[in-house]
């Protein structure tokens, strides 16, 4: 953990002192990058580092779907199933992805390459249907576009 703590210290130095609660989310994201997924003991670790109540960190951890609490694949595909995208055929695309990857929404492929998550609004309704893979947005999707995008991923 000591190298993690160094990174914590770095981040902390750019925040005003006494604003420990504001650091909860940045540290959770940082830790997620390091560890892939987070557990309660990670939340407790951050809480102790920041000297905030552990339950407060656990609340944040469980509230955000982007803070994974289970191991995920190398690439995480988040496809929107909210109203805008659904009107533009998102449900069919989710099914297509499920068939293509051979997994259900919420699962990870056996080779550990992809995790498929259906999510609520990605705030990209103007260019629906949309999905996010890792940190990149892909918009105005159709099946062949999805084929192309997945092929280009390592």
């Amino acid at each position, binding site marked *: 953990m000591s190298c993690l703590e160094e990174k914590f210290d770095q981040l902390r130095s750019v925040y005003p002192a006494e604003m420990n609660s504001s650091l909860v989310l940045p540290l959770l994201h940082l830790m997620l990058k390091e560890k892939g997924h987070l557990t*309660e003991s990670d939340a*407790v670790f951050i809480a102790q580092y920041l000297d905030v*109540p552990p*339950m407060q960190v*656990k*609340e944040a951890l*469980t*509230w955000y779907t982007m803070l994974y609490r289970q191991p995920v694949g190398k690439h995480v595909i988040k496809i929107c199933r909210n109203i805008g995208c659904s009107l533009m055929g998102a449900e069919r695309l989710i099914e297509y992805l499920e068939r293509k990857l051979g997994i259900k929404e919420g699962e990870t492929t056996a080779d550990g390459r992809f995790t498929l998550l259906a999510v609520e609004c990605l705030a990209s309704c103007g260019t629906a249907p949309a999905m996010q893979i890792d940190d990149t947005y892909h918009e105005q999707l159709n099946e062949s576009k999805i084929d192309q995008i997945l092929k280009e991923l390592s």
Partner: protein
Amino acid sequence: MIEITIDNKTVEANEGETVLQAALRNGIEIPHFCYHPCLSIAGNCRVCLVKVDGRPKLMPACNQTVAPNMVVETEAPEVQSARAAVMQFIMLNHPGDCGICDKAGECRVQEYQFKYGMAEPISIEPKHHKKKFNYLSERIVLDNERCILCSRCVRFTREVSKSAQLGIVERGSHSYVARLDAQPFDDPYSDNVLGICPTGALLSREFMYKSRVWYLEPVRSVCTRCARGCSVNVWRRKKHWYVRSLGEEKNITAYRISPLENPEINGRWICNTGFDLHKFMARPRAMAPMMAGNTVTVDEASAEANRLLAGATNPAIILSAHASNEELQAFKEKLSPRVQVYTREDYCPAEGEVVEDDLLIRADKNPNSYSVHAMFGQKAFSAAAGHDVVIVWGDQVDYTSLGNAKIIHLTSYAPEQETRADVLLPISTTFERSGTFCNFEGKTNRFEQVFDKPKLVQHASDLFGRL
């Protein structure tokens, strides 16, 4: 002071207070779940919506600060229908299992649903299922289905007891109250959440299924477990609900303890030790007078005590810090000139017990040290003073520290050794008489009699008249 109008009535409100606070102070009822006078304002339950003149929509009374000449309506048709809708929403996923819920009879959800929930249930989809028996600790069980997510319990641990051990995890209708998986809810004030939870989500494991609350009634008492002397309610079975088949014992059991609001001393809270007061009181009692290990009659025991005292050249008494002011007074008038007076702390902090904190708990684990010291000073017994007869008042006495003196012991409880006293006279407990204690700040607090004393047990104040 500013004037506002609530339901066509002019009421005085304090600057800065909320409409709900002004209404409650003036005896106007506005329903509220999440608002609690000792906690921060959360404004999440919405059952307190009222109409405020000039506002485009209904406002939560708990989160609306009063302003001069504000006009508020609490019973307007749109307020009533909003309340009904809020109740409909809260009941959407509420299991409604009052029949098997310990809270029934003192449950705010039940009460408001009855009073304000005129809307038809609209659940067409199955209710959300959550964990029903979620053991937060040895003491408390949480039924997540019954919880209405008012966050009172969470705010209590953050703002009052400061352990911050509870939180609300997950999101939306999936969210629920939780503690850390790795740590039980072992806050020394944890049981207070049982009382502030407006529904049957948080229940005492000890009281679970012991009695329906409408068979019980509270009696005002004082916790004797430390020098704070918190006001408590002792819950006993109502007389007209005595049932022979329950057995004598269940009819005269103290079922549970709850805090009794006392702004001077403990506010609305007590500590877990106070919640266990009935268990402390239920330890094996000294039920009959004894002489050197043999049971005797009250008269025989008193006669022997008198004989010992009359023959004594240097008698002494060790006072009990559990004695009430009235008992101490009786002793002072009737017996004190004839004996050398010593004092002691009957109880010292037990292992693992919170010794003292800055909320309520005091290091002196006795309820009336203040009066003992005020009336008789403070002087520890010394065997070297060569007393030939010692009256020991109170329990938890180590006889070996008393030297070779003859022992007359007045006690409510009887561990093994007590039977070795030359004379043992059983006395009543705080639950068996009325009286007052003075807490560590000298504030007087009154306790009422909860039960009759057993036949062969005497009140200490009567005893002094006879010695």
